[in-house]
C-alpha cells in the first residue's frame, strides 16, 4: 500500500529553496505543455497540429525531468508522477501566464511567444548550473525552446502582418496576456537562496533582453507593444487564477481515480 501525499500545510518556501526553484521551472513547462497538448487533434492545419503536439511533448518531457529532480531535492520519496498528479492547485509554482486557457489560435501563439522568449533566456542562465544533471536538462531544453521560439515568432509575424482579422486577434491576445508577463521577471528570496544551491537563475536580470527580443518581433509584425499596467502575479507562491484548477481536474483525474495503476 502506497501512501499518496497530497498538498500539506503551506510551509515557508525559503526553507527548501532548491525544491521550490525546481518546482517553478518544472511547473511552467508541465502546465504549458498540458495546455498546448489540448490542441492535439484540433490544430487549424495538419502541420500546425503536429507542431503544437511536438512542442507539448518537449515541454512535458522537460517538466517530467525537472519534477524528478525536484522530488530528489525534496527527499520525501515523491517522484515526478506524485508531484504532477497529487499536488493541489496551491502546490503548483508556475507563472500565471502559462495556465491561461488556450483561447483562439492567436492567443495560444501569443502566450507561447511571450513564454518562449523568457524560457530561452532562463535556460541560457541555468545551463551554467554546477548541478550537472540540471545543467544537462537546461542545455537540451534550450535547444528545444529555440525551435519553439522561432515557431512562435514566425506565427506572430504571420498573424500580425497578415489579414485584418489575424492582426486584430493577435493584438487582442497580446493585450490580454501582457499583464501576466511581469511575474516572470520577479526575483525573491527563494531565487536568491537557490542560486547558492546550484540554480543560477536571476529573473530580473532577464527582463531587458526579453523585452528587446519581444519588441523586435512585434515591430516587424506591425503589432503594438501593450502599455505596462499593473502586473497580475501570485503563481510562484501558489496563488493561481481560476483557470489552473479546471485544468488540473482534467489532468489529474485518471491518476487520482486509479492511484498506482499501470498499463
Amino acid at each position, binding site marked *: 500500500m502506497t501512501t499518496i501525499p497530497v498538498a500539506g500545510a503551506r510551509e515557508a518556501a525559503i526553507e527548501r529553496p532548491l525544491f521550490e526553484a525546481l518546482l517553478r521551472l518544472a511547473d511552467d513547462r508541465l502546465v504549458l*505543455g498540458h495546455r498546448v497538448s489540448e490542441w492535439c487533434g484540433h490544430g487549424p492545419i495538419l*502541420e*500546425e497540429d*503536429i*507542431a503544437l*503536439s*511536438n*512542442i*507539448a*511533448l*518537449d*515541454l*512535458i*518531457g*522537460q517538466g*517530467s*525531468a525537472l519534477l524528478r529532480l525536484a522530488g530528489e531535492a525534496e527527499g520525501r520519496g515523491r517522484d515526478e508522477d506524485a508531484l504532477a498528479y497529487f499536488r493541489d492547485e496551491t502546490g503548483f509554482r508556475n507563472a500565471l501566464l502559462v495556465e491561461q486557457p488556450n483561447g483562439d489560435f492567436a492567443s495560444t501563439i501569443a502566450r507561447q511567444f511571450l513564454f518562449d522568449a523568457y524560457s*530561452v*533566456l532562463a535556460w*541560457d542562465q541555468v545551463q551554467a548550473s554546477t548541478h*550537472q*544533471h540540471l*545543467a*544537462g*536538462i537546461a*542545455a*537540451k*531544453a534550450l*535547444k*528545444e525552446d*529555440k*525551435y519553439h521560439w*522561432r*515557431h512562435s*515568432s*514566425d506565427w506572430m509575424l504571420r498573424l500580425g502582418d497578415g489579414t485584418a482579422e489575424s492582426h486584430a486577434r493577435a493584438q487582442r491576445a497580446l493585450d490580454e496576456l501582457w499583464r501576466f508577463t511581469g511575474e516572470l521577471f520577479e526575483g525573491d528570496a527563494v531565487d536568491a537562496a537557490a542560486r547558492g544551491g546550484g540554480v543560477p537563475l536571476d529573473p530580473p536580470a532577464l527582463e531587458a533582453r526579453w523585452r528587446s*527580443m519581444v519588441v*523586435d*518581433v512585434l515591430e516587424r509584425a506591425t503589432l503594438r507593444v501593450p502599455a505596462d499596467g499593473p502586473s497580475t502575479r501570485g503563481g510562484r507562491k501558489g496563488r493561481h487564477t481560476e483557470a489552473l484548477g479546471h485544468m488540473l481536474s482534467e489532468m489529474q483525474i485518471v491518476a487520482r481515480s486509479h492511484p498506482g495503476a499501470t498499463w
Partner: protein
Amino acid sequence: MVTGAELSREAVLRILEDVKDPEVPVVGVVELGIVRDVAVDGGRVTVTVTPTYSGCPAMREIESDIRETLAAHGIPDVAIRTVYAPAWTTDWIGAGAREKLRRFGIAPPGPAEAGGLITLVRRRTSVACPYCGSHDTALRSEFGSTACKAVHFCNACRQPFDEFKAF
C-alpha cells in the same frame, strides 16, 4: 551467446549495434549516439544512454529493446543509466548513419547550431532532397512526425520528405 569469459565492453557494444531506433529503424542507437557508454563488471552490464529530445516517447522502447537484445545474447543482468550531460546532439551521428538516413528518404542533419539565442531565420535554408538530390526544396514545417524531424518539399521531384533536424 556470450559467455562470462568473453564479456567485454566491445562485445556488448557490437551486440547493441543491432538495436535500432524504433522511429527510424534503419539506424542504430549506438551510431545515433544514444548509447553513450557500456561498463562491464563481472556479469553485470551497465549501459549509459542519453535522451535525444526531453519528451522523446521512444526512450522507454529503446531501453526495453536494449534489455531484450542483451538477454537474447545471454546477458540478463543489465542496468540502464540515463545521463543528461553532455546534451545529445545530432553532431554525434556518424557518416555511415547519415548515409543510411538519406537512403531511407530522410535528409541527414546539418551542423548543430552553437550558441546564439535569437535566430528568427533558419540558418540552413535549403536541404538537399534525399530522393533526387535537388536543392530546390522548401521547408514546410520545423516539426514533423517525430520530435527529431522537420518536413520539407522538393520542387524538382514533387515529393515531400523528412529532414533529421540539426539539434
